[in-house]
């Protein structure tokens, strides 16, 4: 006998509020330009690692950013999106050009013929960045504190409020998951 109550309920203000509150850290960078400044090098390296040719890599990076630019409003995790997109583009490229042989001139022109192990390394690092970008925020900040800021578990514990053992536990899981993902992608360790 109750009337349709839900019709009377005003729209929840929570969602509106949420959208208007700027997320503090680690949210979407304020502009694609800034993101570009930060990620250009890493992406380019990754692309080079994937396709092995500087020219193609640059093209792919450019294309990635252009695509992101179009979708900027919709992409929630642009960093992860960039790496993911670049990887897909690179894999597409490799698939489509599987039968191409590199012309000598082009190699000379690009001036970037990296040794294969360097390429492997770049690819692996790029993949790690991709996985990092797609990681939950908490784990990522742990990684940052540990490997970027070089903090000890104890210091991390103080900053995050997690217990020391929990820091260790979570980092262990992060590393293990990364290793698993890398192996899945055909990269066993740093040797490429």
């Amino acid at each position: 006998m109750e009337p349709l109550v839900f019709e009377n309920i005003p729209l929840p203000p929570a969602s509106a509020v949420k959208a208007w509150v700027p997320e503090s850290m680690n949210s979407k960078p304020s502009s694609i330009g800034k993101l570009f400044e930060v990620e250009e090098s890493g992406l380019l390296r990754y692309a080079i690692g994937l396709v092995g040719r500087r020219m193609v890599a640059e093209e792919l990076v450019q294309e990635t950013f252009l695509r992101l630019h179009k979708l900027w409003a919709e992409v929630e995790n642009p960093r992860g999106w960039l790496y993911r997109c670049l990887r897909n583009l690179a894999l597409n490229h490799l698939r489509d050009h599987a039968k191409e042989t590199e012309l000598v001139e082009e190699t000379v022109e690009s001036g970037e013929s990296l040794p294969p192990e360097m390429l492997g390394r770049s690819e692996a690092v790029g993949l790690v960045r991709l996985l990092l970008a797609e990681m939950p925020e908490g784990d990522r900040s742990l990684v940052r504190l540990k490997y970027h800021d070089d903090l000890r578990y104890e210091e991390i514990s103080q900053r995050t409020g997690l217990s020391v053992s929990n820091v260790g536990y979570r980092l262990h899981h992060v590393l293990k998951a990364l290793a698993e993902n890398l192996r899945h992608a055909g990269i066993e360790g740093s040797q490429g």
Partner: protein
Amino acid sequence: MNHDDNSNTTNTLAPELEARVVAWIAGEASAFEAAELERLTIDKPEIAIFKRRMQAVQGLLAEAVRPEMEPLRLAPERRAKLLQALGAAEAEPETKAETKGIKPKRLKAPIISMDAVWRAQRKHQKWIFRIAACLVLGLFFAMSIPSFQKVRQSSSRGRGPFLFSMDRNESKEAVQLALPAMERETKDKAGFEVEKAKLEKDVAVREAERMEQVSAEHARRRVQRSATVIPEIADNAVQRQKESDEVRPAERGFPIPGALASAHIRLTSKDIPPSPSVVTKDFMNDIAATSTQSLLQYTSGTEVNGLQGNFSAQAAQAAPAPSVAPAAADDFVVLTPFEISTSTDKGYAAKQTLAGGKLEKSRSLADEAKAADRRSENVPKPVQPAKNPYSPPSFTETITAKEPVSTFSLHVSDVSFKIAKAALANATAIDRERIRPEEFYNAFSYGDPSPALNEKISCHIEQAAHPLLQQRNLVRIAMKVAAAGRGAGQPLRLTVLLDTSGSMEREDRAAAVRRAMQSLVSLLGRNDTVTLIGFARQPRLLAENMAGDKAGELLAILGATPAEGGTNLEEALKLGSELAQRHFDKAAQNRIVLLTDGAANLGNADRTQLAESVEALRQEGIAFDACGVGMEGLDDGMLEALSRKGDGRYYVLNSAEDADAGFAKQLAGALRPAAKNVKVQVRFNPARVGSYRLIGFERHRLREEDFRNDKVDAAELAAEEAAVAVYQVEPLPQGEGELGEVYVRFLDPSTLSMVERSWTLPYDPRTPAFDRASPSMQLAGVAALFAETLQRGEKEDVDRLNELTPVIKALPGHFPNADRVDDLVEMFEKLKKLSAE
């Protein structure tokens, strides 16, 4: 049962061993741990493999996270163009040098050196015309010719030469037919696509999006023939942009790209309002903003839902911060939302009724605020949350004949006492507002008897002649809750000692422990913390001081902890008590819970010695609960002894079902308040009491009818907690009957039923003089009178209080172990000194 090390060497390592290895390579392991792991590595090759893998990942991580030594950059030209394409999206004419990473459009050139720009421009001067044309045509194709769309679609399936040539024919026709329409098209659609096509042109050969590419290629050829079109378009664009300062001056030689590039800024934002990635003047006007700096802030991850969807007004944030809590930082009384103004003229008849929550002793203001928030969420809101911060207490007596009933919420706190103590110690002015007599006389423990076994609450009533007033008595009414639980606001510092010896691996026991932990975790709040120690041969810290609301992770840890080895209870107890002491919180309930399935078979397993250490813990305020898992092999006697010595509980889990019913219920008793919504009503007998006055509780008074209105919230009491109310009454010697009756009503959380009890307030014709009354009566009376003296802040009162000096001096003798009583005496001395000055 407790078999020693089991040789469980499969390929996968135990997670905790993995964690240790990770800690090791992360440089966290102590020398001892490192040596131990080194040894293990030699024994078990899979550890070495795991270690190598982790090291590799760690190397990659470090490289991935750290900034690069020599950052790679795109080729300068490509970079400039890309930046332009991207930058166009955020070049905001109003924010001049605001953005750091990327400059506003006007300032974009410096990103690459001017020299490079110049060179690039020279090199591509020719191209620019072509590009402009390409994109115009390309767009034109895309937009105006449906048949072309079809070709596009079909051609995207494959890229044979046939499709290619067909496309070429189509587009040739189209261009010739529709040239006049082009301008209109450009106006609306030049934009991002322009930049994109331009770049694509530069890149020249690309596989992705090949149709656009192809059309651009064609367009270029077309353009060479019909180049006249371009200046027209460009002029048009320039005109449209005249008022904009974006127009590139012609002296540099390329008005067209500048004009086009800037044109699209406005166009995109105007044409595609739902997702404005550009802030233009028009946009600003649309949202009635005057400056981007003050107004707009990009937010992320938002759905595109209208013009303002992606922007949040900073102004909203910068709006005057919600007025800071009226209380100063050291004021713990954060009851403001619950406070009610009592009307002075009406005596006790407060308009509304509100409960004070129990204030914890050492909680910060912020905690209180949070708690208040939570309370206000859970609790049915008072009808009119009055905000009047303070109304001076009424010292007038209520005439019983007019208003025989006094109702209030039984609130227990000692905050006011502590504040006053600090103020007196520093000889600073006392904020009279913060003097709440009930928090003075409730600051003491009077040693009132606990309720009988089957009673939820007990009431103890004492009387004495008022020491300072003629024909007045003081009546102390003390309620005490049964020992059944813990106050809701009281945080829990829980240390769980979990037996992980080999015998615990048994499935039924593991399940029981799991269920037990689940119910335990479910009872924890965010103020609680848990420390989990697993112990077998050696105790190991699994989680330290984990916040109660994150305690769900314990279950994961539990699942990842293997069961192996013997049972060394001694070591576990040692570590447990060390950690419990480390995280000891006076205001919290500190408990150690031991979950074990068997007898201690390693280390010192002497029952009396273990019991002694537990007893020592208890004396430090740490209770000890024991929980036996499984019936066989359980050292029942020892666990019972330990928990008895530790003032804790002892229970046995025989199965997972037990963990549900028994364990959780028992734990609930320990973690939840024993009585909620405690209200007291005193009905005085007008034939015996001429007038009365409740000392204190000004803010906790209720209307008579609210007593049985369970929607009106009131205070909570924890287990074994006593709450005291002191009345000043005028007994009529020639009257008849008793003084009155005391009613108490509260919610029993264990049964969720309301409990109501009543006691008679007897009339004693030979009420003892104050100095001959019981010590607890004296203490309560002194505390109440002292508080009211502070509250009145008048010198005469201090002088009158002086008469009580002998009684006050004698108080510490009656309460030898109560520091608070000494404090009270000290405060009294201070007050005397201060008022004498």
